[in-house]
């Protein structure tokens, strides 16, 4: 039974066996007998039909040697098989490969680390050769299992490295041909992916963050595993990505890698891993990663806020990489999801700092995402966010409502900051502008401030925002960047100027305004002036300025300090307007007032303060320091501008409570004292949702937005969709119909209607949950409960 050393019997043995026997030396340390190996190779090449028997025989010999622990001979056998494998290209190679793989498996099964490593090397060589006809019945299950186990070895780096290289080889071997073995099956991926991550997670990976390409011959297990992961992800086609991502998420959960126990705020490994995935994945699929992470956030709704913060943090770090590729409904779906998380978070706990961090992380992710979208999508996103904001009602009964509003406005601001306005009319479609202006009348001064900031970032096209944050009478020092306004801009302001000015005027009436609020309105007006500088807009602006002055003079609700604030705002604008539009006489007039006030009443000039000196004279007592309408008209005329419009009655009231005068005001406002019926029963509110009038209106107003949303909601049940649409219509109706009412309600007056509306909006938003089971509960819609009379005429 002793081969290789028994020359006498070799004569009776088949030739191929003799060739094989002869490659083994007497003493294993002498190594493979080279010239006999050449003979064997030549023999195999010339008689390829013998290859399978050669292979089988070599395997049998090696198996015996392993059993007898004669590892030297085993190593020689493996080397010989490697050489044969590389030398032969015959179709018969297939059969040889079977023996070859049996041999590799045999070595992997041994407890000797050396043999395992050797086997892996051979397997890698095998994986690199191209077989003419891959064998479809061949299975790599054992190799994946074993290499994965080796990846976890505690016997040192060498075994782990072998394991990783082995996995890499299996992937390479199988990935191109699904018929051979579908390596993307969970049974494999659930082994391969955690094994790679396990090796990566202990790395000092941060030092290498910059290097996106790692040399192939990296021998450090973390780097090698990373290379392998990149390769794997890079080869994944659309159908396979989830198979890779699922075990990644599971591994991160189980190993607590979102928020490591020793350092919960350190999610750098998570970021690192997902960046790798994003950079390796075929670009057109990258949004799948984002989608999967968002879904994982859903799954973690009950987890600690630290974990949720970490996941959102990862999202915000990678979302940018995906955004460029994301198209279509995916965008809104992701945004919607993030918004839902924000809302849920607000519901959870409002006070915990950890929850706050989570909200910030979400807002950041939103902003990052939007930042990398094309501008037209940003507008859609802003409108989408807008549609999610609960409406400011008289009193926000719960702090959560309040918080949600402000958080959503912050998100809106974040997105707005990333948006670059070109034409105002494309930035402010009516369906966006109107709700935004309505929001600018929110009871909470913080919220109003946010809305103004959103307006600022969207209006400012020439980087003048910084210069115009504070009212000033030294306009010449500002170095404003000016550009002649375009026709579309002028059309825009002609069309929408009235509602904008009106909203700004109304917001200035609020007795809860701080100097910050007044300054913010100044900035908005100043930006409007700068961006839309033209003789045509000057009159409207001046009309407003004069209106504000009379508000400051006549209001019975504003405090003295607030009135001083308004006067300072008025004079600042009066200087700014003729500087920008170049009306020297008017500028001169404005400067005279400034000078006079500097002498006699500095409290009527900027800066705005909360408290003014006790002895500050109220403006009514110093009429010569006020802006005089007649003087303005005259200066305009000598500046070459027709002031006749300004001379007419001002559309702005005297500023007393509840005295918002109709008539000349834009029809959008209608009468402030509309009856309940006026507000609640416009033709749109119809129990039949398919009223054609309503449909047409929506299509006209929100074409792209609606179509996007349609795609978004198409996946959910039709019933839910229909209900949502009805609800949206109704709430739209309320939104559009009740602005004047809102204006009125911003004044300290309550009535039955307000409470009723309050109830409705509250129940609407309560119904508007994401939980589909709740949606399914067949209930009377809130509006039917509250307004049954609307549905049964």
């Amino acid at each position, binding site marked *: 039974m002793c081969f290789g050393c028994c020359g006498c019997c070799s004569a009776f043995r088949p030739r191929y066996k003799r060739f094989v026997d002869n490659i083994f030396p007497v003493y294993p340390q002498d190594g493979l007998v080279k010239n006999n190996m050449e003979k064997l190779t030549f023999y195999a090449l010339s008689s390829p039909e013998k290859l399978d028997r050669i292979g089988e025989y070599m395997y049998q010999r090696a198996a015996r040697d392993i059993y007898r622990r004669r590892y030297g001979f085993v190593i020689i056998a493996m080397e010989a098989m490697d050489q044969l494998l590389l030398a032969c290209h015959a179709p018969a190679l297939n059969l040889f490969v079977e023996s070859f793989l049996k041999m590799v498996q045999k070595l992997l099964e041994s407890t000797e680390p050396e043999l395992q490593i050797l086997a892996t090397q051979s397997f890698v060589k095998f994986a690199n050769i191209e077989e003419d006809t891959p064998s479809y019945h061949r*299975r790599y299950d054992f190799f994946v299992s074993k290499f994965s186990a080796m990846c976890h070895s505690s016997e040192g780096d060498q075994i782990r490295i072998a394991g990783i290289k082995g996995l890499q080889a299996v992937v390479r071997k199988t990935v191109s041909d699904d018929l051979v073995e579908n390596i993307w099956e969970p*049974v494999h991926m659930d082994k391969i992916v955690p094994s790679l991550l396990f090796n990566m997670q202990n790395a000092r990976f941060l030092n290498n963050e910059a290097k996106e390409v790692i040399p192939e011959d990296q021998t450090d297990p973390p780097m090698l595993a990373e290379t392998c992961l990149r390769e794997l992800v890079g080869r994944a086609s659309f159908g396979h990505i989830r198979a890779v991502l699922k075990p990644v998420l599971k591994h991160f959960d189980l190993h607590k890698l979102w928020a490591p126990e020793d350092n919960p705020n350190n999610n750098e490994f998570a970021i690192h891993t997902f960046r790798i995935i994003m950079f390796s994945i075929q670009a057109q699929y990258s949004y799948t990663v984002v989608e999967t992470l968002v879904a994982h956030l859903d799954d973690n709704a009950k987890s600690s806020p630290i974990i949720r913060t970490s996941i959102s943090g990862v999202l915000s770090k990678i979302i940018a990489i995906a955004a460029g590729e994301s198209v279509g409904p995916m965008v809104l779906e992701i945004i919607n999801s993030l918004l839902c998380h924000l809302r849920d978070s607000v519901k959870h706990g409002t006070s915990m700092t950890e929850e706050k961090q989570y909200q910030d992380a979400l807002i950041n992710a939103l902003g990052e995402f939007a930042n990398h979208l094309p501008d037209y999508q940003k507008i859609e996103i802003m409108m989408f966010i807008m549609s999610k904001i609960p409406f400011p009602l008289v009193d926000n009964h719960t702090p959560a409502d309040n918080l949600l509003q402000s958080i959503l406005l912050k998100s809106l601001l974040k997105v707005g900051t990333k948006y670059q306005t070109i034409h105002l009319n494309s930035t402010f479609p009516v369906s966006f502008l109107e709700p935004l202006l309505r929001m600018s009348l929110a009871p909470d001064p913080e919220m109003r401030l946010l809305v103004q900031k959103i307006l600022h970032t969207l209006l400012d096209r020439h980087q003048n925002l910084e210069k115009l944050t504070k009212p000033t009478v030294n306009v010449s020092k500002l170095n404003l960047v000016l550009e002649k306004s375009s026709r579309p801009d002028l059309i825009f302001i002609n069309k929408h100027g009235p509602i904008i000015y009106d909203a700004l005027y109304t917001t200035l009436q609020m007795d809860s305004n701080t100097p910050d609020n007044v300054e913010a309105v100044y900035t908005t007006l100043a930006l409007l002036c700068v961006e839309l500088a033209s003789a045509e807009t000057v009159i409207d602006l001046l009309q407003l300025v004069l209106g504000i002055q009379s508000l400051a003079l006549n209001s019975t609700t504003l405090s003295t300090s607030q009135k001083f604030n308004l006067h300072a705002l008025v004079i600042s604008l009066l200087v700014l307007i003729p500087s920008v539009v170049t009306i020297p006489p008017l500028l001169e007039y404005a400067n005279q007032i400034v000078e006079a006030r500097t002498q006699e009443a500095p409290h009527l000039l900027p800066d705005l303060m909360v408290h003014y000196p006790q002895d500050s004279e109220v403006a009514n007592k110093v009429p010569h320091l006020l802006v005089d309408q007649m003087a303005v008209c005259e200066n305009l005329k000598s500046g070459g501008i027709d002031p006749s419009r300004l001379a007419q009655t001002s559309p702005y009231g005297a500023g007393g409570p509840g005295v918002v005068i109709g008539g000349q005001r834009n029809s959008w406002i209608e009468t402030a004292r509309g009856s309940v019926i006026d507000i609640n029963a416009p033709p749109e509110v119809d129990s039949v949702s398919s009223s054609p009038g309503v449909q047409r209106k929506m299509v006209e107003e929100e074409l792209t937005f609606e179509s996007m949303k349609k795609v978004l909601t198409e996946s959910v049940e039709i019933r839910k969709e229909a209900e949502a649409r009805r609800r949206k219509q109704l709430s739209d109706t309320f939104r559009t119909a009740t602005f004047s009412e809102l204006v009125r309600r911003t004044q300290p007056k309550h009535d039955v209607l307000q409470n009723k509306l309050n109830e409705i909006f509250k129940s609407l938003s309560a119904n508007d949950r994401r939980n589909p089971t709740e949606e399914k509960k067949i209930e009377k819609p809130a509006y039917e409960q509250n307004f049954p009379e609307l549905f049964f005429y």
Partner: protein
Amino acid sequence: MDDYKFLFKVVLVGNAGVGKTCLVRRFTQGLFPPGQGATIGVDFMIKTVDVDNEKVKLQIWDTAGQERFRSITQSYYRSAHALILVYDISCQPTFDCLPDWLREIEEYASSKVLRVLVGNKIDREDREIPTHVGEEFAERHNMYFLETSAKEAENVERLFMQIAEDLMKQARSRDLPRYDASTTNINGRTSTVSDSNCCSRFQ
């Protein structure tokens, strides 16, 4: 010499520290390793035994009990012919976790898998789980039951031999789950029996 008629995959599961690795090493290497460290990920051992004069190769996958390795260990259940669920008779919590393990087995393993419940460490004086309690549990859940001591080599050989015999009986009656990566359904559970001889009659 290396030929075997049957190849069976056996996977050990159970809480950390119940003695899975010790059982495997006792069986494959005939020793009780002093200071056996916790298993990381998955370990692998092989042993060929004789059943009715036939060679049966047992591929033994020893999984880590630690929770954090659950993702990788679960992926090994799927191809198991037999699952050995181990608890420590001197440690009540390891017994209390059994329902959780069963749930996992239900989810990830083949429904045909041979399931064996093992109460290990019977050499210890401080027993907390009486034999009949373990027995009843096994009966209720349709499992084989055995108490062992890896330390004293008690019932270890018997455990694995029993499994080998049983699987062989099943294989002979062609009732053994066969694993074929391409026949897993969407849930990742093996659902179909393939024609290929993958319980491996190597000749």
